[in-house]
C-alpha cells in the first residue's frame, strides 16, 4: 500500500542539509510574503521597520504610520497564519498517510474536512452569539466534527476488511464526505441566514487574518504538531507492519488513535480560521517523499517547513494576482497543486 521503492534505497534519517533547505524555503517565502502585497511598501522600509521592533534596536524605517499598520496588523499576521495553516495541513496529511498506511489519505479524502465543516456549520447555525463566547467554540465544534468524520470513514472502510486496499478507505472517505456535506447543505438551507457566513468560511478566509486568529489556533497547532512529530519513529516502525510493532512492545492501535486525534485536532483548528484549503496535505508530503525518501523521520519535519512555505506563496498569489481583488486561496492551491503533482509523479517515474 505504501510505495516501497524509496524506503529501501533512500536514507531514513533527516539530513541537516534538507532541514536547512526547508527552513530557508520557509524564511524566503515569508520575506517575499511580507514584502509584496496589493499595497506597495518598499522592501527596505519593510526590513528597517521589522528590525526596529527588535529589542535594543531603534531604526527609522521611513514608513508612514498607515504603511506600518498595514505591515504589522494586516500583512504579517496573514503570512504567519498562512505558514501555520500550511504547515499543519501538510503535517496532518502526512500523519494520516502513515496511520492508515495509505498514500492517498488526506484530510479532504478522509471526511475530516467535511466533518469539520459540518461541525462548524452546526455551531454557526445553532450556538447563540458565538462571537461573544470567552473561547471561540468554532475550532472545538470543527474538531468534534473532524473526529466524527474520520472515525466514521475508518469504520466504514473496515467493513470491507477482506478486500481492503488503498482505495477502500478512500471510497469510504468519499462516501462519508458526501454524506457529511449533504447534512451540512441541509442545515444551511434550514438556516439560510447563516448561508453566507458558512460559505465565506468554507472558501477560506485568510483575507481577514489578524493576530487574534494566530493566537486562537496556536495552542492547538503546537499540541497537534508536537504529538505527531514525537511519533515519527513509531510511524516508521508501524509502516512495516503491526506484528513488527507488537514485537517491539508498541501498542499500534493506541499510537494510531493518538495520531489520528492529534492530526484531526490540528486540521480542525487550521480549517476553523482558514476554511477548507485543499491539496496541501497531499502535495507537500508526497513531494518530500518522492524527492527525499519516505521515512516519516524525513517526511514529517520537512512537511511542516515546506507546507508553511507553500501556503505563504499560494496566499501571496491569492492576494496579488488580481489585486486589489482577491482569489479564494483554495482555488490557488488546487490550481498550482494539480500540475505540480503531475510533474513530481512524472519525475519520480523517470528516476526509478
Amino acid at each position, binding site marked *: 500500500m505504501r510505495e516501497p521503492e524509496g524506503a529501501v534505497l533512500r536514507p531514513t534519517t533527516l539530513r541537516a542539509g534538507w532541514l536547512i533547505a526547508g527552513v530557508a524555503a520557509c524564511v524566503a517565502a515569508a520575506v517575499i510574503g511580507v514584502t509584496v502585497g496589493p499595497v506597495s511598501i518598499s522592501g527596505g522600509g519593510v526590513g528597517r521597520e521589522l528590525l526596529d521592533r527588535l529589542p535594543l534596536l531603534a531604526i527609522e524605517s521611513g514608513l508612514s504610520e498607515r504603511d506600518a499598520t498595514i505591515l504589522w496588523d494586516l500583512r504579517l499576521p496573514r503570512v504567519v497564519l498562512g505558514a501555520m495553516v500550511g504547515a499543519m495541513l501538510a503535517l496532518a496529511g502526512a500523519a494520516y498517510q502513515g496511520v492508515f498506511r495509505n498514500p492517498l489519505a488526506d484530510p479532504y479524502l478522509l471526511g475530516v474536512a467535511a466533518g469539520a465543516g459540518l461541525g462548524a456549520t452546526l455551531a454557526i447555525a445553532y450556538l447563540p452569539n458565538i462571537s461573544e463566547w470567552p473561547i471561540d467554540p468554532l475550532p472545538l465544534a470543527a474538531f468534534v466534527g473532524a473526529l466524527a468524520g474520520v472515525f466514521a470513514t475508518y469504520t466504514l472502510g473496515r467493513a470491507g476488511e477482506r478486500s481492503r486496499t488503498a482505495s477502500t478507505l478512500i471510497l469510504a472517505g468519499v462516501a462519508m464526505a458526501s454524506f457529511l456535506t449533504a447534512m451540512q447543505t441541509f442545515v444551511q438551507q434550514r438556516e439560510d*441566514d447563516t448561508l453566507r457566513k458558512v460559505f465565506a468560511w468554507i472558501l477560506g478566509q485568510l483575507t481577514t487574518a489578524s493576530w487574534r486568529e494566530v493566537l486562537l489556533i496556536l495552542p492547538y497547532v503546537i499540541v497537534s504538531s508536537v504529538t505527531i512529530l514525537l511519533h515519527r519513529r513509531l510511524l516508521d516502525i508501524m509502516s512495516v507492519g503491526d506484528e513488527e510493532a507488537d514485537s517491539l512492545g508498541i501498542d499500534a492501535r493506541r499510537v494510531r488513535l493518538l495520531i489520528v486525534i492529534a492530526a484531526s485536532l490540528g486540521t480542525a483548528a487550521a480549517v476553523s480560521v482558514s476554511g477548507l484549503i485543499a491539496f496541501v496535505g497531499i502535495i507537500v508530503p508526497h513531494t518530500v517523499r518522492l524527492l527525499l525518501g519516505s521515512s516519516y523521520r524525513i517526511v514529517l519535519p520537512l512537511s511542516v517547513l515546506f507546507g508553511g512555505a507553500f501556503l505563504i506563496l499560494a496566499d501571496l498569489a491569492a492576494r496579488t494576482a488580481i489585486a486589489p481583488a482577491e482569489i479564494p486561496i483554495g482555488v490557488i492551491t488546487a490550481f498550482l497543486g494539480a500540475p505540480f503533482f503531475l510533474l513530481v509523479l512524472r519525475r519520480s517515474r523517470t528516476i526509478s
Partner: protein
Amino acid sequence: MKGRIPLLFMLCALCVLCALVFAACGGATTEAEEGTSPAGSGAEFPVTIDTDLGRVEIPQRPERLVSLSPTATEMLYAVGAGDQVVAVDDQSNYPADAPTTELSEFEPNVEAIASYDPDLVVISGGTPELKRALGRIDIPMLQQPAATTIDDTYAQIEQLGAVTGNVAEAEAVVADMQERIDELVSGIGDEARGLTYYHELDDTYFTATSETFIGQVYSFLGLENIADEAKGSGTGYPQLSAEYIVEADPDLVFLADTKCCGQSAETVASRPGWDQIAAVREGGVVQLDDDIASRWGPRVVDFLEVVADAVEKLLSARG
C-alpha cells in the same frame, strides 16, 4: 479524485458569486412594451409584454399574483397591486403586510407555487426548469432580472403596472422616484465630488464596483468607489484585500452587512488597522439596511437619501 476538489471550490466560489449577483445586481435589461393595452390607468386586457426573455401574455387582470422576488414584491405594493398578491417568497419581508410564505426562488417547488392557483408568477432569477414547469401547467410567468441601471428599475415598475392594470399608479411611482432623486442630487451638487467610499457586502470584504446597480446609485452624487481599482477582476463584486482598503483610506464606509454579518460602526472600528481609515476616524461609517441596499425597487431612493445624509454630515463636520 484529484479533479473533485478544485471543482468543489469552483462551485463554492460560483455559488457565492451567484448569491451576490442575485442579491444585488446584474442580468439582462427588460424593455416593457404594452402590446395591445393602451396607456392610462384603466388598462385593458389582454396585455402582451415582450421581454428579452420571451413574450408574456396576460389574458385578464391578475387577481392571484405570486411574487418570488423581494424586489418585485416591493414594486407590486408600490404600484397599488398589493391586494392582488396572494403569496410572496420567504425573502420578501417588505412591506410588512405582504403574505410571506415558504416559497423560495432558489429552490422553487412548482407544486407549492401551483397550490396558490396563481394567474401570474413574478420571478427575478429563476431556473429554466421552473419556467418550463410553469409553462406546462399554463401559468404565465414574468421574469424581472436584477436591474443594472436605474432605468431598468423604472421599466420594471412600469411593466408591473401594465401587467396588473395599474399603469397610472406605476407612472406616478416612477415620476415620484425621479423627482426625489433629482432633489437629493441637486441638494448635494458638486460638493461630494472626490469623496471616496467603500460599500461592504459582507465581513470578508466583498464589495461592489461602480459598474453595478448599487455603485451607479452612489455615482449619482459624484462619489468615487475605491473598488473600481479592482474592475479588471471580471466581476462587479470583487473581494478586496484588507490592506488595500486601509491604504485607499475611504472617506465613507457603507455597511450593507449589518443584518447578515452583524457589522456596525463599532465592529468596523475594532478591525486591525482600520483605525487608520478616514471614515472610521471622522464618523463616516454608515450602517445600511442589507435588504434595501441589495434590492433595486422603489426604496432605492431611501437608500440614496441615507447616502446623501451621510455626505452632508461629513461635509459639515469638515467645515
